[in-house]
Each structure stands twice: as C-alpha cells, then as structure tokens.
C-alpha cells in the first residue's frame, strides 16, 4: 500500500465513516442472505452435507425443470437478440422517419416498464381458451395456451427491447463510411452486411444474448402464468416448493441450481463482453448513412417485420386495456368501470403500500448508488474492487435466489425483518441500486479528474468540491438511478414475492392473486394503472434530465437494458 492512503482516510473521517457504513450494509443485505441460503442447503446439524442438493439432483422432475430453464433461456436469448438486431438495424440503417422510430420506441418500451405479467395476461386474452384469436376468430374450443411456446413467445416479446436498446447505439456507432467503402470496392449490399456490418456487431450480439438469457432464466412471472404443468422451470418450481409444500430447504436448493448458469453469465459479461456496456453509454452516431445500406426489397421486409412486431405488442396491450373495461372478457363484454372501482377501493391499500415502499426505496437506492459509485470510482481504499463486485451480486443473481435468501436470513433471530416494509425496501435498494452504481461509475470515468483538481487549486475543500462540482455533474446519473429504482419498485416480483406479508404487500403480488382467482379484469385494471404511473414518472424524470442538460435524456429507459 502506498503511504498516504491511510493518512488521507484518517484525515477525512467522513469518508472513512461512509465506507464503514457501506460495508456493514453490504455485509448485512448482500453477503448475509446469500450465506444463509448456502448454509440452509449445505449445513445440517452443524455439519456439511450434500443431501439437500442431492435430493434436487435425483428428482427427475426438478432436473427436467433445470434443463427447461436452460432451453428456454437459450431460445429467448437467440430469438430476442435476432428481433432486437432487426429493430436496431432498421432504426439506424433503413432511413425510417423519426416519427415512426419514436412510435416504435414507445411501443417496445411498454413491456420493459410494465409489471412482468402484462404480456402473459394479454397473451391469454388473445390465445387462451376464450382468446380473441383462438376462440372468436378461429373458433377453436378449449385452446391449450399453456406450455413452452407461449412462455417463450411472451418472454421474447417482453425482453427483446433490451436487445434493441443495447444494440441500437452500437450499430449507430459503426461508421457507415466503412460500409460505403466496402460497397465502393464492388461488394454487394448483402456481402457488405455479411462481411462488414455483422462481424462488427458480434460483441454486441453476444452481450445481448447473455442479457436475455439471464433475464429469461430469472423470469418468474411469465412461466408462472403461461408455462403450465407440462413445462416446469426452476424459478417457479422453487416458489411452489416453498409456498405450496412449505419446503424452504428444497426451494433454496432449487434456486441454487439457477446460481451456476447465472454466475457463468455474470463472469462472461464482466470479463468477455463487458466492454460493450460502455458503448451504450458513450456511443455517438456516426451520422446518417450517406448511402443506402439495404436494397429497397430488404428495407420493406425489415420495416414490415418491425411494424408487425410492434403492432403485436400494441395489440396485446390494447386487449389488456379493453379487458379492464369490460365485465368479463370473452363472455360479457359490456363496458364497465367496476374493475377500476375495485382497484381504487379494495386495492387502494396495496396500491398505497407499493407507492409508500417505492417512495422510500427510490431516494435511498438512488443515494446508495451514487455514493457507492462515487467512492469506488474516485477514492482509494482497501477492498475497493471487492466492494464494487459485491455490490453487483444481488443485481446479477436471479430474483428468486435473492428473495429466498432474504426469507431465510430475516425470518428468524438475530435479525427479524419479515413482515415489515423494511425487508422489501432493503431488497429493492440493494438489488436495483446497482444500476445507479454502474451509471455513476461510468459517468465518473468520463468526468475528468482535473475538474476536481481545479476546484481544489481554487481553495475548495474536498467536501465543497464534491458538493459544488462533482455532485451537480453526476446528478443525471442520480436521476436515472431514481427512475430505475422507481420502475422496479413498482413492477418487480421475483425476489419480493418471498418477502411480502399480510401487513405489507405489493401491486404485482396482488395482480398474481387476481390471476389465480381468475379475476382477470381486476388484474388487467391494476396493470393499466401501474403502467400509467410508471409512464408519468418516466416522463417527469426525462424532463428533469433535459433541464440538467444531460447528455442522455433517454438514460432511464436505456438503463433498463443493462
């Protein structure tokens, strides 16, 4: 260690205190739950044992669930990346009108900011036993909507916008003059695409495959509704093991099987294609294509495909809205506001709970993200890299693991948080605050150190410099972090379903209850209300970011894709 680091820490007690507090919080809310989860699976009567994991590995049904999860993740990764690429390519290379691009953007944003079931609910309204297409249009009686195909389609439709948002700046950053050069050398457009454009996109494609694979692997809500009995996957199996069979240990062991592929993805992302992440932050377009990258036929094919997919998503949301406004979708389609009445009477408490929790978790998570990101990026202290990596753990792990870890850790003494709001808030802060950390670090890396030195040379103390120079400049990262925190707080379920209680529950859990009680109209109404709230908040934060002259005004939505 260099001389001076310790001395500087001693000279700045506030800094040392902040670091100490962060370590305590990380230990308590990230390390401890995971450790307790591992202990529950691997320790019995004080001895190490493999019986817990062996029970899972020898259960044919659970092994099938494991392979199903991998299969589903791979398919969603491939299909979602393909569609994401088509959208991104069309948006950057097909000379679409800005209005059309904006419409597409808004439409594909819908699944990203909705409660995780909305796509699945819409899917049932369209393709279920009384679905608009299956029953009304095709006249099929008792159509079987549940299974792998539906789950995969709904997940691909939900998550491909992530690939689109990650790939678009990347393709835009490819100087189209490179393509023009290849064209001028006599290559056909298809050959240019195959030999120039596509190879340049490979890191981005790999990255987006990993993102989608991880998202599908962790997705709990879609398979819970759409997978049915024939296609078990790990997150739902773990949930059913705990809530249905009250087998906490078995559920924990099941969730641990998710850990292996999730960790592989985390490592691959960080060390293999991790750099792609920065392209999405700093990437600047190389200007409008000076020539036509695609033939007219290819252009029309791509555009039609994009419009068709966009319309499909919009169609599912319109169904959702329609179902929330009729008595019983598919049976009695008379207009009614009854479902909304339920939402704003019986549902008011759960809506209030959710908003209170979001209102507390959002600033806390935003502050936590900026503080930790700033310290890790700018200050030298022992264990800095360890802190950075540890802070990402709850975010990188599937929510099911985190949720079960919290359930095990905070249900019994010494620390009992179960049943309260705090456990839900902590779960959000330490899971989704990670986005703020990453944004802040990326922002600090772009922020030249000489700005802080200039302030210092003018006589400002370390804290004045932070307050008057650093903080205003990382404010966009703070607001973007706030946006993500709020959206997630309103829509997440995979982790928090394990920590809700009778006294504190969430809209997403309520929607799930309504679904199982077949109160589809109320579920739809709840979903519509959540989407509306989230859209208002995104709009407001977008306004603030524009006020701050932030480089990326669309940062909030961009962050959902990381």
């Amino acid at each position, binding site marked *: 260690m260099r*001389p*001076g680091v310790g001395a500087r820490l001693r000279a700045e007690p506030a800094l040392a205190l902040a670091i100490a507090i962060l370590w305590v919080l990380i230990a308590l809310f990230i390390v401890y739950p995971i450790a307790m989860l591992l202990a529950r699976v691997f320790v019995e009567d004080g001895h190490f044992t493999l019986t817990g994991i062996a029970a899972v590995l020898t259960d044919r049904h659970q092994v099938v669930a494991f392979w199903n999860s991998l299969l589903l993740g791979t398919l969603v990764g491939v299909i979602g990346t393909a569609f994401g690429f088509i959208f991104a390519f069309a948006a950057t290379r097909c000379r679409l009108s800005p209005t059309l691009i904006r419409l597409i953007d808004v439409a594909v944003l819908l699944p990203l900011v909705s409660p995780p079931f909305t796509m699945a609910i819409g899917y049932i309204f369209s393709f279920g036993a009384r679905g608009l297409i299956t029953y009304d249009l095709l006249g099929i009686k008792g159509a079987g909507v549940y299974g792998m195909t539906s789950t995969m389609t709904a997940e691909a439709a939900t998550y491909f916008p992530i690939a689109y948002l990650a790939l678009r700046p990347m393709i835009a950053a490819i100087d189209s003059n490179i393509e023009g050069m290849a064209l001028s050398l006599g290559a056909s457009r298809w050959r240019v695409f195959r030999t120039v454009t596509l190879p340049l996109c490979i890191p981005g494609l790999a990255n987006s495959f990993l993102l989608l694979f991880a998202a599908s692997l962790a997705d709990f809500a879609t398979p819970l509704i759409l997978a049915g009995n024939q296609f078990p996957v790990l997150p739902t199996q773990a949930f059913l093991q705990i809530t249905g069979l009250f087998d906490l240990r078995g559920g924990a062991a099941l969730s641990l099987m998710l850990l292996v592929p999730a960790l592989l993805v985390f490592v691959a992302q960080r060390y293999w294609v991790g750099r792609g992440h920065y392209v999405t932050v700093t990437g600047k377009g190389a200007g409008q294509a000076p020539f036509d990258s695609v033939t007219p036929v290819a252009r029309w094919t791509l555009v039609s495909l994009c419009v068709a997919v966009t319309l499909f998503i919009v169609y599912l949301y319109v169904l959702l809205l329609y179902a929330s406004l009729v008595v019983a979708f598919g049976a009695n389609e008379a207009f009614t506001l009854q479902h909304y009445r339920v939402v704003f009477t019986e549902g008011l408490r759960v809506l209030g709970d959710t908003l209170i929790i979001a209102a507390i978790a959002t600033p806390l998570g935003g502050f936590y993200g900026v503080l930790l990101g700033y310290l890790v990026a700018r200050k030298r202290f022992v264990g800095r890299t360890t802190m950075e990596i540890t802070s990402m753990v709850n975010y990188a792990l599937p929510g099911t693991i985190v949720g079960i870890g919290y359930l095990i850790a905070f249900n019994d003494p010494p620390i009992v948080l179960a049943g309260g709001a705090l456990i839900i808030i902590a779960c959000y802060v330490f899971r989704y605050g990670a986005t703020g950390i990453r944004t802040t670090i990326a922002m600090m890396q772009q922020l*030249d150190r*000489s*700005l802080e*030195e*200039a*302030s*210092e*040379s*003018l*006589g*400002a*103390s370390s804290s*004045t410099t932070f307050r*008057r*120079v650093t903080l*205003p*400049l990382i404010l966009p990262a703070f607001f973007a972090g706030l946006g993500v925190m709020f959206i997630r707080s309103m829509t997440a379920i995979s982790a928090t379903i394990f920590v809700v209680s009778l006294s504190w529950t969430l809209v997403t859990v309520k929607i799930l209850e309504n679904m199982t009680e077949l109160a589809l109209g109320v579920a739809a109404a709840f979903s519509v209300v959540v989407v509306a709230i989230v859209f208002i908040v995104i709009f407001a934060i977008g306004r603030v970011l524009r006020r701050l*002259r932030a480089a990326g005004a669309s940062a909030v939505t961009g962050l959902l894709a990381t």
Partner: protein
Amino acid sequence: MKAGAHDAIGVSADRLSKRFTHAVKGEVYAARDVTIDVAPGEFLTLLGPSGCGKTTALRMIAGFEIPDGGRVVFGGQDVTLLPANQRGIGFVFQNYALFPHLSVFENVAYGLRVRGQAGGAIGTAVSDVLKLVGLAGYESQFPAQMSGGEQQRVALARAIVIRPRVLLFDEPLSNLDAKLRVEMRHEIRALQQRLAITTVYVTHDQEEAMAISDRIAVMQGGTIVQTGSAEDLYHRPATRFVAQFIGRANLIDARVHDAADGRIAVDALGHRFLLAHPRAGMAGGGNPRLLLRPEAISLAKVVGKTDELVGAVVSRSFLGEKIEYVVECAGEQLQVVRYNAGPDDLLPVQAKVALHFADDVAILVWDDEPKGHS
C-alpha cells in the same frame, strides 16, 4: 488586480521524487531529485519530451501529488504536506477544466466564493479580470458554447482572479491551433509581467518555452539536466540531449586533443579545429561531438582547388525568407540555413561549396546520460 513585485514570493523544489510501481519494470521514478529555485516574480519553464516527469514535478508543486521524497517551499514556508487548496496557487490545465455546469461568471467567481467574499466585490473582481483577458461581456455564456482559445482565457482568468501566490501552467496551449498558440503565449507572458506572479510553466514545445520564459529547466527521464536562460541552453547545452532538444543541431563525430592557451584542439570533418570555449570540466560519458548550429555555417561556391573545408550540396528547400541546405562533407550530412539575400543567392544541388564557421560558435558536447536515469 495589481500585485506589486514586493508581494511575489520565491518557489523552490528541493530534491523532489515520485515513484510508482510499473507492472513490468517494477519501481520506476516519475521524477527524481528535481530541484528548482524560482525567484520572486520569475517565469520558469519545465521543458521536456512527454514522459520526462515535468507534469509530475508541477503537480507536486501544486499539491496534487504528495512527493515520496524532497520538499516544496513557498516563500520560506514548507508546503510539502499542505493540501493544494491551502497553498494559494492558480493552476491552468491543459484541457482547461472549466466547470461545464457553471457560466463563465460563476467559473471565474468560484475561487472567490470559496473564500467567502462579498457578492459586490466578486462582481467587480470578475468583470475586471474578464476585461483583462479580453472576455468582457461573456459572463453569462457556458463553456460548451466557447472556442478553445476563449475557454483557455476563462481558465486563466479563473486562476488569476484569486491573486495566487504562485501561478502554475500544465501545457496550457497544446490544445490550441498553431496561430492561437503564438498569440496566447504573448498574452500569458504580458499578463505575468504585469501581475508579477511567480510562475512555473510546463511545456514540451521548445519554441514556446524560449519565447515565454525567464529561465528554462530541461528535463529528461525524470530529472533536470540543465537549467538556464534560452540563450544559455541554445549556445551552451550541457548534453547532447539538450543540444538536440533545443533548436536544430549538427552533431559531428570528433576526437579531442589537449592544446595550449586554454584552447582545445578537435579533429572533425577531416580537419583540426582550435575551439575558443573548451568548457573545462564538462567532459561527460560517451563520445564527444562537435555541435554546429545550422545557421552558424556559411557557404561559398568553390571554383578550382582550395584548402578550405569543402562539401557538396545534396538538397535544398527554398522557404522564402531562408533556404535550407543539406551539405555532405567528409561523410557527414550537415544541415545549413542561410537567410535569403536575393535571387542570385541560391546554390544549386551538387554545387561544390566551402564551409565556414567561427571558432567561438562550435562547442563540444558529450552523450552524457544524466545521472540516475535508468
């Protein structure tokens, strides 16, 4: 805004060293035993190629880096361990480092606000200093709306408005285009003279250093190899490195013989020369070389046989006010610069020419790597 010369303080760095750990090379010195003494009101430049440690030395003087060894003294006060914000410096950065979220006025006012000055006094001081750097009326602009030259003026105004005891510049002009660079260096010099602030300036541009400084310290490999006025360094370089870094140089293989009368005899270019300035005690390592500046050599057309030093013109570039020749002489290619005396002055390529230079313009230099360089 005026600071009398009696306010100026001296700045000295005494054997400043800074090490860092290199992944391959292990422990490496970014700066080693850097010693300078800047007189009150003096303008001293640290000059050297990139990576020579000049910026590290400046940052230790500023307080941005804590030295591993040595002392920094401001006007008799040891400030080695004093943080930058308590040293009373003005620092001008290469990339300007203007606060992008603040207007020009607020950028300049920043240091005054930190010092808790009253609003009225701040307003007057800021508009005075903006007038001084030629930016009156720019108060409400933001840095992003300004050109590079304007931004550097704001940075300069921000540094001097707090009446620093010491003004420090880190390659302030290297992001500007050539013409603006020349203009700005005159302005910086004029301003420094007017305010009489002790100044340390870092650059890799030898012409800039010569134009702007009272004295120059040439750095190489983390250490200072020579300190002196521009004329000193040009006419009496301590090492071959200094000779090559300052101006252009012909360095000719030479053999040295003792000679009487305080003179020294040198064999070079197939001739024996008696040098007027032997630079006694300067003998360093490596082979001695005879240093001849291109403008010190005169050329004359030769017809027939002669005893004089004779060469042949290899190439020439006509540059208007001057003509640059390459002349081959006894196996050495020599650069020669002549001022254009008229249309008939040009020597053709392949012309046989006699070379003349005065005894007192040629000196000997040695390879002589500076001590401590690894």
